[in-house]
């Protein structure tokens, strides 16, 4: 059956597009949607309903449709699209859905992006009100953005054949759009749906950029774009949706909103059927009846629920031989699949289309999202914007106004006011177009439903929710619309209640015998229409998902086969496996080489903060648990920082560069946090202190050179430096030249070995690293990664913040009372040490653990228990293993652990459940290697 008209519509009849639906081949034209093309081919059944499996068709022509759910299968599979919003293209393949879509198994090849846009006036909706608003604002010189969800401007005008200023409305629209597009500072975005309205003029809009091109979409172009629009003023000209009336068996395909049928006719040249019944509560559906009749549809009957039909329109119908019955309603339908007959009282009228109008719902979703108050308009039977917002204006039928000229006038006023509020007052008057429209919709009757079989009277066609469901909900004791919505699931489906929500509210009010004005409408939540996850993720995926931070020496590590560990956003060399090595063998080799000769690592990721000012010492005394002001210029001290709750938050070295200058290092993961911490205290608590902090983390490349032969290597590359133990003491630093470039060398050790930390300007990093490698070659210098660093420090009992600590650990728990000043009157965290909990003797304390079997490696994260047999749960746990390694230096495995009363348990045997066994371990001090510190000086 071909239901395409001979002429008319904004489709390109000279071009044929081939597509398939449910496996059958069809044709359509450019300008069609999938829905219009299917209807033109006589396909009214699109899918079936999710709960009852009843056939579902096309109810509306646009994004408010609630039933035409399809799965697009080609060009790329995408679930749950409305056929009314899928633009037809050659090769489109789709199928109807039973309420559930299917995700593609293969990765989506499309690109998505986002763009920020700023404007003085944002206009949402390019119907008559929006166009006039945008033009008015544009002429005032304001920066204007106009967004519209359709592929062409015009809004409601696209669905009529009316004239504006004595010429087809499309011409008027084209002129306005042309002027807008040629005005500097104006951006017109088609196929762009404003889907979310947030604080401070932040509007999100989704632009569908290439979907309509199908297979011809250019590669590289983002398929969809999220516009992040920040506007000073907004004009919402979002229009109104026609709503149906609920009656028994109102869900058959072929039952369509009257205005949508009119849109299919005028925009796409498609007839809804060959013989139609029109059922209305207001004037607007008469236009559909008349237009369709003039296009050859047999209008069997116009059923007007009002006691009297409007005289002029009834006369126009009579002139065309259309019967009008007032004071009657549709009481049922027939059909197997598509509607085949309509019942009006006792009369049965055969037809293949039923066009319904129950009035109009202003589209207030964005206004409501912007926290605009809604008010019930009893004449309209709908919620309308009920209060002013200082930065958001509503114009056109979104206010409930349905007369075209009045809508345009509201648009002009809103455009003027918005521009003026944004500071633009020089705009000229935009002339309002004169309309020849024969009907306005205002003089309607508010009718939610026709009584009858409640079980077959569908309120939400997608959720299969009926009048009976609503009445069961109110009968169950539910009073709030939110409860009824949840009980019945009305309004929770794909369309989010665009057509069903108001009707459900009306039926609830009737059932409860309350005024709708007293009911609070359910909340409108973003997004207005659905948005793909990928569009929201934009380009923040794959390599761009989260920045990878790398050091200046990183390319060398890559070239030399390092495996990397993620530490925050940094990539750090984890270990450098040689052929055939796994983690353990590589790390044992790296550890041995370092302890026995010399190794080095890239320590550039450590946070570095330059702290300057007269009060720098005083300031650091407050932040660290130990004393920094007494540190002498040229010397270095290890320090611990706590939060105000007394728990360790970071540690590192502090070097005194000058009388009023320190350089503080932080752990890799906490660099930004500690700088923020310092600034917070300085700016908000102690602004009187003369201290300034500057991050220099990336200014320096930092290379710890570690092991008994490190002195020899350093001497070879720093000829000007006296590296003797006497001249270059432990915990001091010297400025010198290393490999010919200025360097600061610190003698610090995180391994217990003789060690130096060489700092050079980052862009010299690779050169100095390579010079050290060359100079160390005679000693078998070995680059090592974080894992070896962890083992070396663990053998010495040095904790890693975040591994040995978990925000419940104090310096005392770590055995670092020596780093907690007794002299300072105060420092951050000190007061918390005095709390009862801090002085319990059974706190968890850092100790070493030696498995009885020196070959057994305890899994990190293992728990520790007291008995050699497990009782029934819950089992009392004494603590857990924080670090565990095989040690080359100790010739055995060992672990660090936090253990309840650990410091008192030295020498005790405890047990670690590992899978099904209990591993006996001996508690030891945390320092296991070179307890005397003999190796420090080489």
């Amino acid at each position, binding site marked *: 059956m071909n239901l395409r008209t001979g002429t008319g519509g904004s489709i390109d009849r000279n071009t044929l597009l081939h597509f398939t639906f449910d496996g059958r081949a069809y044709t359509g034209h450019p300008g069609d949607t999938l829905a219009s093309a299917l209807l033109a081919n006589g396909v009214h059944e699109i899918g079936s309903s*999710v*709960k009852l*499996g009843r056939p579902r068709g096309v109810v509306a022509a646009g994004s408010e449709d609630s039933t035409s759910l399809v799965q697009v299968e080609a060009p790329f*599979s995408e*679930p749950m699209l409305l056929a009314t919003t899928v633009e037809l293209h050659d090769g489109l393949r789709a199928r109807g859905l*039973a*309420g*559930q*879509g299917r*995700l*593609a198994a293969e990765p*989506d090849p499309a690109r998505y992006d*986002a763009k920020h846009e700023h404007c003085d006036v944002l206009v949402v909706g390019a119907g008559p009100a929006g166009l006039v608003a945008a033009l008015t604002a544009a002429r005032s010189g304001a920066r204007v953005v106009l967004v519209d969800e359709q592929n062409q401007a015009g809004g409601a005008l696209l669905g009529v054949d009316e004239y504006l200023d004595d010429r087809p409305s499309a011409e008027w629209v084209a002129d306005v759009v042309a002027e807008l597009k040629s005005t500097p500072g104006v951006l017109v975005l088609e196929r762009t749906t404003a889907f*979310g309205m*947030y604080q401070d003029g*932040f509007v999100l809009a989704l632009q569908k950029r290439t979907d309509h091109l199908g297979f011809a979409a250019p590669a590289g172009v983002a398929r969809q774009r999220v516009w992040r629009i920040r506007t000073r003023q907004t004009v919402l000209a979002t229009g109104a949706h026609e709503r149906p009336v609920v009656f028994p068996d109102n869900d058959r395909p072929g039952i369509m909103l009257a205005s949508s049928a009119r849109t299919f006719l005028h925009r796409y040249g498609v007839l809804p059927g060959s013989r139609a019944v029109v059922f209305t509560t207001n004037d607007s559906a008469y236009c559909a009846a008349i237009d369709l009749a003039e296009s050859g549809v047999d209008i069997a009957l116009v059923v007007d629920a009002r006691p009297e039909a409007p005289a002029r329109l009834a006369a126009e119908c009579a002139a065309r031989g259309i019967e009008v019955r007032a004071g009657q309603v549709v009481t049922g339908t027939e059909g197997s699949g598509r509607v085949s007959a309509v019942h009006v009282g006792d009369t049965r009228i055969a037809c293949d289309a039923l066009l319904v109008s129950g009035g109009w719902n202003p589209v207030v979703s964005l206004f409501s999202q912007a926290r605009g108050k809604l008010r019930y308009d009893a004449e309209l039977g709908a919620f309308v914007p009920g209060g002013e917002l200082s930065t958001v204006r509503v114009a056109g039928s979104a206010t409930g106004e349905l007369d075209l000229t009045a809508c345009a006038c509201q648009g002009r006023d809103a455009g003027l006011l918005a521009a003026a509020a944004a500071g633009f007052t020089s705009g000229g008057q935009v002339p309002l177009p004169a309309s020849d429209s024969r009907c306005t919709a205002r003089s309607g009757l508010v009718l939610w439903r026709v009584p009858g079989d409640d079980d077959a009277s569908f309120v939400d066609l997608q959720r*299969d929710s009926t009048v009976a469901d609503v009445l*069961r*909900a109110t*009968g*169950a*004791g539910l009073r*709030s619309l*939110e*409860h009824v919505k*949840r*009980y019945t699931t009305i309004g929770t*489906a*794909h369309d989010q209640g665009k057509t069903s929500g108001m009707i459900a509210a009306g039926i609830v009010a009737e059932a409860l015998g309350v005024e709708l004005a007293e009911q609070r409408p359910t909340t409108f939540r973003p997004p207005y229409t*659905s948005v*793909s*996850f990928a569009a*929201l*993720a*934009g380009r923040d*995926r*794959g390599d761009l*998902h989260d920045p990878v931070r790398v050091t200046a020496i990183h390319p060398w590590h890559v070239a030399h086969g390092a495996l990397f*560990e*993620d530490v*925050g956003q940094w990539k750090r060399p984890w270990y450098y496996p040689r052929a055939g090595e796994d983690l353990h063998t590589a790390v044992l080799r790296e550890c041995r080489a370092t302890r026995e000769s010399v190794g080095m690592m890239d320590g550039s990721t450590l946070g570095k903060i330059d702290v300057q000012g007269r009060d720098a010492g005083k300031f650091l005394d407050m932040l660290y648990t130990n004393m920094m002001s007494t540190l002498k210029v040229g010397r270095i001290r290890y320090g611990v920082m706590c939060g105000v*709750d007394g728990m360790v938050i970071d540690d590192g070295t502090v070097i005194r560069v000058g009388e009023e200058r320190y350089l503080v290092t932080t*752990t890799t993961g906490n660099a930004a946090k500690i700088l923020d911490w310092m600034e917070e205290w300085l700016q908000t608590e102690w602004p009187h202190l003369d201290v300034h902090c500057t991050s220099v983390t990336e200014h320096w490349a930092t290379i710890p050179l570690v092991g008994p032969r490190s002195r020899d290597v350093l001497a070879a590359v720093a000829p000007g430096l006296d590296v003797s133990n006497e001249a270059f003491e432990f915990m001091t630093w010297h400025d010198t030249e290393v490999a010919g470039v200025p360097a600061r060398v610190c003698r610090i050790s995180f391994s217990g070995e003789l060690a130096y930390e060489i700092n050079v300007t980052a862009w010299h990093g690779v050169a100095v690293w390579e010079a050290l490698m060359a100079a160390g070659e005679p000693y078998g210098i070995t680059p090592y990664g974080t894992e070896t*660093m962890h083992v070396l420090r663990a053998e010495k009992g040095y904790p*890693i913040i*975040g591994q040995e600590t978990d*925000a419940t650990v104090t310096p005392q728990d770590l055995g670092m009372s020596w780093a907690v000043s007794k002299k300072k009157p105060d420092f951050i965290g000190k007061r*918390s040490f005095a709390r009862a*909990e*801090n002085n319990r003797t059974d706190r968890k304390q850092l100790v070493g653990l030696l498995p009885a079997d020196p070959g057994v490696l305890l899994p*990190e*994260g*293992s*728990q520790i228990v007291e008995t050699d047999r497990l009782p029934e*749960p*819950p089992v009392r*746990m004494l603590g*857990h293993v*924080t670090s565990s390694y095989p040690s080359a230096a100790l010739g055995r495995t060992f672990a660090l652990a936090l253990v309840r009363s650990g410091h008192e348990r030295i020498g005790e045997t405890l047990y670690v*459940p590992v899978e099904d066994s209990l591993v006996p371990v001996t508690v030891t001090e945390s320092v296991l290697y070179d307890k005397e510190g003999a190796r420090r000086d080489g």
Partner: protein
Amino acid sequence: MTSPPGAHLPEHPDFLWDNPEPKSSYDVVIVGGGGHGIATAYYLAKVHGITNVAVLEKGWLAGGNMARNTTIIRSNYLWDESSGIYEHSLKLWEGLEEDLGYPILFDQRGVLNLAHSLQDVRDSVRRVNANRLNGIDAEWVDPAGVKEICPIVNTSPDVRYPVLGATYQPRAGIAKHDYVAWGYARAAHAMGVDLIQNCEVTGMETSGGRITAVETSRGRIAAGKVALCAAGHSSVLAEMVGLRLPLASHPLQALVSELLEPVHPTVVMSNAVHVYVSQAHKGELVMGAGIDSYNGYGQRGSFHIIEQQMSAALELFPVFARAHLLRTWAGIVDVSPDASPIVGLTPVGGLYLNCGWGTGGFKATPGVGDCFAHTIAHDKPHPFNEPFTLERFTTGALVDEHGAAAVAH
């Protein structure tokens, strides 16, 4: 012919509850008609025989966080104190449908908590071991095991934050939040509890250090005992009796997709990238994000949080690319300094406190309902909520579930 995908879901009963006028006096007034408040009323009536109880709700019943959460139920918490109360809760969940005679769609499909860094792995293994010794089902699964449990998770090592493994609690799962709340409400109502909606508490009366009544938008209601179950609004209520709480109320956002054929058989959580996702019974993907940073009572959050969540979700689940965001919303979560709740007595006689659940409130509903009812009935904490005192912030005996924030070497 196969039945339609949505045909199998149970219907609600024909009767739920009455809407009585508040009486002038009750033995116990519960402030807050969310899941916790209603469950507390239910256990007061059922376990302790206290039925002269009113639940006062300022809006619609169970319309706050109960209606807004992502319904994840699990008990695999690190500390003994937490695992005690959450496991108690999980055990009650396991019998709840029968207990309430209401289909709550409790589905023990398991939860995976993903680890993305070596420290995540250590923390996860630590938690698994602690769980097992506490009698809680928990296992550590490697990436291949993750793939087996949830095939759509991207376990490729070549992504920004590869999945290094996960903890798995098989008994964890999801339930249907409204069904749970309504099941409790119907049962509580049937035992004589008054559920009073649109009744906002505007003040509280005390006499001689004891609570005596609450002032409400529907008049004064005398009360022998008053129990606060107001989640995000707890601070505002406690302020009425001069009680200051260590809470911050934050927006927490969540979202759903449209209905999709089953693709996601379990629950996946990733703290590192701030995503948790499951597929609900009808087929929608339900996702939650991290909390918004600022205090807020507006039940709305900032959209960049959703965008970040989406990019993180797509890294984990590339198949979600063309799923569509259908609806977003926010609740108000009351976050305590140690991310653990505060449940127990207060300095005001007869006034009881249940708050600070942050993002964990839904899963605790049966457990805390039972324990809080015990606390109210006996004027003494139940052993499971004994550690969660207000005093712990003074003594320092925190139950810090934030855990290690980040590895920092």
